[in-house]
Structures are given as C-alpha cells and as structure tokens.
C-alpha cells in the first residue's frame, strides 16, 4: 500500500492478501473524543518514528467545547520526505459512530477503517474501503480488569496498530514505561496489559491489513532525532538563545510556550512573570530588556493587538525584545483553535507611526527552534523588537527532527555593565544603537534617558524637525540593514522555469509536496518558503526573475484587491503583476491536492489539471 500522500514514492511493493506488505509511509487518523487519549497514542507513534530515524508529522483538532467533545489526531510517519500530515488517511481508527460518520470521507479509496465494534456500526455496503471491526472497549476491559474501565482503550489501539504495521514493540514498550513511569505502579502495568492485548489481536481478524512500515537504521554517528511540537521547539529555542526572562498572559495557542518558560527558566536562573494582561506583559518584558537582559513576550491575535502601543515604544526607544505571536483564526476572537495566517500586516504595521521592526516566520517545527535563535540574535545586534509569527498548526503539530547541536548553538550573553566613556551616545546617528543598561557608570556623569518621544543621540527628548527626520531614517536604515545578515533558505525544486511558489509559515510541507506533483506533470516549478518577512531578503527580485509565474500560497483572505497579505507586500515592493495569490480561509491547513488544484486552476493549465486528476484526486487503489 502506498498512501495517497506519496503516489510517486517508490518502495511500496504490492503483495498478495494476508501477507505483510512493505510501505514507505502511512497516514493514520485517530477519531474519538478528546478524553479518549488519542493524542497520547498519536504522541507514542510520533516518538516511535522519531526514534526510528523515520519522519513524522501530525495534525490535531481541538474540540470547540471546553472539555471533551469530538477530536482527531492524525499521524503520518515513515521514511522519505514527509512534509505534510497527509491529505487523506490510509487508516481511520473510529472510536464512535460519530467518529466514523464525520471522518469516513477522510479515508482514501481503498483505505482501512478500523472501528470499535462495541460502538460503531459501519455501512457494510461501502465497498470503497476495507472495514475491520475490533471490540476495542470490551477487549480493553477484559484485558485490564473492571476497575479502570475503558481507560486503557487508547493503549489497546496502540497495540493493535503495532501489530498491523509491525512496529518496534521494544521501543513502544520503553516509551510507555517512560511516560507512565513516575506514577502509580498499577498504571504502567495496566498500560502494558492493554498494549499486549491489542498486539495479540488474532491475525485473522487483520487479514488484508498487515503491513511492514519501512524502517531505516539510524546512520551511525548521526544525531538522534527528537520529536516535539512547534511551541516546545520555540520555547527551547529561546532558552538556547540565552533568553532568560519573559512575561505573558494566557491565550490559546500561545499559552503552552509561556507554561514551558515559566517552568524552565528558573532552572537557568531566570524567570517568567504571568501578568494581568498583555499590555502589562509586554511592559514587564521591556523592563527586563531595559535592564540589560533580552526578554520575550508573546500571545495570539487579540493579545498582539493589545501590545501594539508598547511595541511602538520599543521601536522608538530601540529596546531589544522578542514578541511571539501564535496566529489563529481571526478577526477578533475568530476561530481560536484553527489556523490562519492573517496577522502578518498587523505584525508589520500594527503600531501607529512609522514603527519598523523585524518579523520572522518559522516554516516547520524544527524551524521554530532555529527562528528563535535568529530572532534573539537580531534583537540584540540591532537593538530592536523582533516578532516571531508562528501559527496554530506549527504550534500543535509534532514532527521529528535531528537534535540540534546545542554545544555549538547555545548562546550566553550577559548584560554589559562596564563603565561608559565620556562622549558615549546610545543613539548615534551614524552607528548602531547601544544602550548602557542601568548599573553602568557613565564616566562623564551624564546618565542616559530612554523615551517614546523623539530624541537626540543622547536620548533626550526633542521636537527638532531635522532631528526627527534623521532619527526616522536611522530607525529605518537599521531595519533595512537586518537583511544583509540573513542566511536565507534555498529555492527548492527547479531553479528557474514556469512557476515559483512562495509561501510562509506552516504551509512549507504541503507546498513542497505540491511542487513534486506539479513537476510530475511536466511543469518546471520552484518553491521558496519565506522565513524573513520583514525586511524581506534582498535577493528576492533576482530569484523571482527566473520564473514566468509567481504564486503566493497564503492562509488568509484575498483582501479588497484580490491579494493575500504577503502578496500585497511583495507587489508593493516589486510592482510585478505576475505576483499573485492563492488564498483560503477555512481555518484548515492547505492540503497538497488543494494547492495543486488551485494552482492549476489559477494558471488555467488544464494539462496539469488532468495530470493531477490522475495522480492526485483519484489515485488508483494499488493494494
């Protein structure tokens, strides 16, 4: 079986029914209620992949009810280049009738429905799929004993999946022990009982559905993989960057960064303050930074709006700061648990006045870690606020990636409190801004002032017209200079040709895969995921010059004039009418097929369309 998601990937070897077939990667969608611990199974599978030198990407939904309610967790794992969590599932595990009904259509033709026969009655006339019923609930109760009831159902399913895909039982068992270790002995024992029961499910019941997921043995000497979500990667990236102070206020999906930092920073001698609101949070963070220690604050949409005024102060006073914004559906409270990339303009232009600052957008979970490092570097080097524009999809999805080389990357910076010589100017018109944090002796006896009013080179407020003009230039040229320090990512795919696909943020994977499919139909296609949103990298015009069409894929609205937010910026800068948008606002990440389809439609290229129709929309069932 080769999933819908890698129709072109080699290695899927058809085999006769009943025997295990080898496959490259698989997309498993677990559908139940959020109490059922489906995130836990998903997490185990993801970490198993991470420990098996496989790639993995997950996707989950958060129920709109406060606790409980239907929820899914999708895992795509395997070897090869996994860049999206998969358009459609190869396997759907349905815990309830509603899970089955809502998600039947997410299953690719020929996929496997694994359902709890204690709860689900599938439509048996449905011949497009293979339906396998297992009494998950009663089998769990039977295996574990009455007292814990259905609690181990998820682990039972994990055992079942391990059987189905011939997963590494030793590694899974180790993971289970690690996870439940510290707790009550009984819990570990029950979990293992449930796992074993699932794994021991009679093979006859799984006839037609036994597979072997291609395993790679880790390259000797390679860095081990770690498996985590984007918010965690970002939080640890900040720690690696030497950020030791922060302040925030809860909001989904930002909160988990704040929770991680609140717990972790004291270990490093730092601290994180939970404030009364987002304005206090950015203010406290700026106080930390003013004290000489670069700090972080963050939020999601509504909180970023609230920080707009203080952010402008940081621009004017040129105080370094990192502001994380985990984008979600907007405007206003919007769709708080969905994905959207609609805060870009606000990140760049959200404060009154000309208030230029740096905006970066990580592209993958791994990149969340590295973007944090880059943000801290830029904030310090240019004494500027830097906004990290991540999003709900990156925040919550799990990926496996090479453990960063911390020895090399770890940054340690201490505030420079050395005495400042006579003539010291924090805001020289012809040089970088360098503050003397409090505690620094000023040898000429004149202590510096920071203010949100326009000021002279010493920081003293002034309404001198010429000075305002020159300081405005200073602040602008400083941010322009940031671009010269970028190590910008390469263009993937064809380096010139018909079409350049541009994207930013969480769409990296789907666009990347879409490129492959578009190329397969004969187009020459390149892909660039823009990480440096503001200022843009300076070679973009040259890059774009190599392509006939340029399409920007964005999860936001096409706006009053037909262009998404990044597209608007690019058009304003380059005045190239070939820069156009492909946007959507349904609160979901782009599927690969959606991109292929929309690009084809947009370019009016029916040849792609038919190519896609074959290879993408209705792939032949191969197993």
């Amino acid at each position, binding site marked *: 079986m080769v999933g819908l998601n890698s129709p072109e990937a080699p290695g899927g070897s058809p085999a006769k029914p009943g025997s295990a077939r080898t496959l490259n990667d698989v997309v498993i969608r677990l559908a139940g209620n959020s109490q059922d611990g489906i995130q836990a199974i998903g997490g185990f599978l993801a*970490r198993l992949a991470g420990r098996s030198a496989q790639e993995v990407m997950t996707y989950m939904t958060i129920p709109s009810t406060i606790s409980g309610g239907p929820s899914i967790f999708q895992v795509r794992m395997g070897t090869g280049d996994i860049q999206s969590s998969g358009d459609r599932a190869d396997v759907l595990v349905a815990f309830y009738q509603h899970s089955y009904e809502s998600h039947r259509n997410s299953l690719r033709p020929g996929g496997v429905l694994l359902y709890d026969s204690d709860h689900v009655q599938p439509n048996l006339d449905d011949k497009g799929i293979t339906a396998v019923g297992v009494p998950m609930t009663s089998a769990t109760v039977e295996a574990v004993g009455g007292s814990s009831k259905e609690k181990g159902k998820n682990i039972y399913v994990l055992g079942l999946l391990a059987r189905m895909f011939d997963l590494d039982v030793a590694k899974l068992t180790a993971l289970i022990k690690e996870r439940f270790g510290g707790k009550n002995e009984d819990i570990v024992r029950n979990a293992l009982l449930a796992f074993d029961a699932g794994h021991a499910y009679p093979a006859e019941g799984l006839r037609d559905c036994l597979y072997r997921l291609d395993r790679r043995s880790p390259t000797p000497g390679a860095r*081990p993989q*770690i*498996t*985590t979500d984007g918010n*965690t990667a970002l939080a*640890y990236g900040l*720690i*690696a960057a*030497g950020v030791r*102070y922060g302040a925030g206020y809860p909001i989904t999906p930002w909160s988990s960064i704040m929770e991680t930092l609140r717990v972790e920073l*004291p*270990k*490093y*001698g*730092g*601290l994180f303050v939970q*404030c*009364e609101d987002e*304005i*206090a949070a950015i*203010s*406290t963070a*700026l*106080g*930390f*930074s*003013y*004290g*000489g*220690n670069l*700090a972080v604050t963050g939020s999601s949409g509504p909180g970023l709006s609230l920080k707009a*005024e*203080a952010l402008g*102060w940081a621009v004017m*006073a040129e105080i370094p700061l990192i502001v994380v914004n985990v984008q979600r559906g907007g405007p206003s409270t919007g769709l708080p648990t969905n994905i959207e990339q609609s805060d870009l303009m606000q990140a760049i232009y959200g404060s009154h006045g000309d208030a230029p600052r740096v905006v970066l957008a990580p592209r993958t979970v791994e990149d969340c870690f590295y973007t944090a490092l880059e943000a801290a570097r830029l904030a310090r080097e240019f004494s500027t606020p830097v906004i990290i524009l991540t999003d709900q999809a990156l925040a919550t999805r799990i990926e496996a990636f090479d*453990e960063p080389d*911390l*020895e090399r990357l*770890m940054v*340690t910076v*201490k*505030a420079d*409190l*050395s005495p400042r010589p006579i003539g010291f100017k924090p805001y020289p018109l012809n040089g970088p801004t360098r503050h*003397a*944090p*409090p*505690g*620094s*002796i*000023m040898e000429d006896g*004149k*202590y*510096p*002032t*920071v*203010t*949100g009013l326009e000021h002279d080179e010493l920081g*003293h407020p002034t309404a001198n017209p010429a000075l305002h003009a020159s300081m405005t230039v200073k602040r602008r040229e400083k941010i322009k200079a940031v671009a010269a320090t970028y190590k910008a990512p390469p263009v993937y795919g064809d380096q010139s040709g018909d079409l350049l696909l541009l994207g930013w943020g969480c769409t990296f994977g789907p666009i990347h895969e879409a490129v492959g499919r578009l190329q397969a139909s004969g187009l020459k296609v390149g892909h660039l995921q823009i990480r440096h949103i503001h200022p843009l990298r300076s070679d973009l015009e040259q890059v774009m010059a190599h392509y006939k069409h340029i399409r920007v894929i964005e999860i936001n609205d096409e706006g009053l004039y037909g262009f998404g937010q990044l597209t608007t910026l690019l058009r304003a800068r380059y005045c190239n009418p070939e820069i156009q948008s492909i946007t959507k606002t349904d609160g979901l990440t782009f599927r690969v097929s959606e991109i292929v389809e929309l690009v084809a439609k947009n370019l009016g290229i029916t040849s792609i369309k038919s190519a896609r129709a074959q290879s993408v929309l209705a792939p032949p069932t191969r197993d």
Partner: protein
Amino acid sequence: MSASTLAPAPDAPRAPLTKKALTADHPTWCPGCGDFAVLAAFYKVLEKLNYPQEKIVTFAGIGCSSRFPYFVNSHGGHYIHGRALPFAAGISLGRDDLHVFVFGGDGDGFSIGGNHLVHTARKNPRLTYVIMDNSVYGLTKKQTSPTSPLGFKSKTDPWGAFDQPINPMRTLINSGATFVARSHATQVNHMVEMMLRAAQHDGFSVVEILSECVEFFPGAFDTSIPRKGGTFQAIDLRKNDGSPEDATRHDPTDELAAFQLALEPWPGKFGVYYENKTRPTKNALEQKLIANTREKTKNASDLDLLQKAFAKMR
C-alpha cells in the same frame, strides 16, 4: 545560573551624592507647579540614601508629573501612558541590584494605569512609586481626572464633574501595596520623610503627594495649606511605648485602621497609612524558586540542562 547580571565590584569609597550631580535638565513645568517641590525633596532623599548613582533608576509614564525622570540625572526615562509600573516591575525583578523609582500623575496612575497599580501591588516587587496628584489632567490641559472632586469645572465637565472620584488612599491600601503614605508638596520635610521611608521599605511602596497644578487647578489643596488658612494634619503614629495615649495613635500595620483613616473627610491626614513588613517581595519569592529549582538540578550548567531537556524528547 546564567541569568544574573553582575555589576562590576564596588569601587573605592566615592564622594557622596549631591544635588548638583543629580540635577539634569531644567524642569519645563509651569512656574509655581507643585512638582518642583517634589523634585527638590527627591534630590534630598537621594542625597540621604547615597546610593551609587548608577544604581538609581527613575521611570515614569506620560504627563506633566511623568517628566520627572528627565530632571533627575540617573538611569531612567519614560514609558507609555499608564504602564510604567509593570515596566518597572520588570526592571526590579530582572535586576535586584537596582533602586527603582516610578513617578506619575493621578491620571496616569489611577485612570489608564489603575489595574497595573493593583496587580503590581499584589505581587509586591521591590520598588517605590510616587504619585503627584493634582486632581486634573495637566499635560492635556484640564480634563476631569479620577481624583477631581465633585463639582470641579474642567473642559470635559464645564458644569462641574459629577462622576464619583476615587479615594486614592482607599485604593492604595486595598491594592495590597505593603507601604502606603500620603504627603503634600508644600511640606518639604514631610515629603522627604515619606519618600525616604518608602525607599527603605522592602517591597512595593507608594507615596501619594498632593501637588498643585497652578495652571489648571489652582487652589485645589488650599484646605491643607496652613499659610492659605488650611490645616495640615500629620498622622500620629504609634510608638509602641506602652503609654496609655499610645493606644489612640495610628498603628500602620492595622489594615482596618488604615482603611478607616482613608475614609476621613477631605483634606484628611498625611503620613504613613499602612505598612506591612512581613509579606515577602516577589523578588524574594522568585529568587527562592530559582534557588529551589537549581538545588534540584544540582546547579547544572545551562548547556547540561538544555541537553537533558532535549534528551527527554528523543
């Protein structure tokens, strides 16, 4: 522990801090503005405290009174309107070695900044906040402020204000501030004493100073200015000398008594309303958390700690 910022070792004994060294720009306040006297008193306080000059931080929001830091030659500056307290809390919590002072007006502190006052106070970071209350918006030229008395004729209430003003002393005592005092810009010695006690308090200390805006609310505080026929009533503080009259004196550790004092009719009394020397500061609590945590991790290096965290994600 990487987060701390070590100041250079203290130098050889230095010359004492003088008003001259502390004076920065010439104040741009209107001639006669009460804030001049507050500034003069603050210089005296700093002279007495004789902190190393580079360790003094003066910060503010926006308003006439908030220009204060410009006139003090120390590290400092001013932030946006109403938000100086959380900013200053960040300075204090990140840099326990500094002496942090915040200045501002009644609008800055009780109107737009009212919530930050309460939440900063309950956290009790080590810093001193001086509110120059002129019962009007000065810098924006005479609108009703939250302490403008009923009947005050401003540009936004030319017929006389009728929204109930706040009672600053009640508000401050209720906020959870661990030191609350009230003074008057015409009483220099009293101001010096109050600000000095506030600065020496280990926690969040506030002094509200009635400071006349001669431009937009002249005569606001005449009833508490003896040379204008008013009376200035200082609080008689408990001496704990066991004398019978001592029982009638004000015990600043008694919250209820402080509240009662705050309810006295205008112009009320001046002095220390409330003082709590037992509540730990947030600085201390966070340092304790750090110490406990680091004890658990056996003072591992930053790199070790982070490597361990990543190992768990394998």
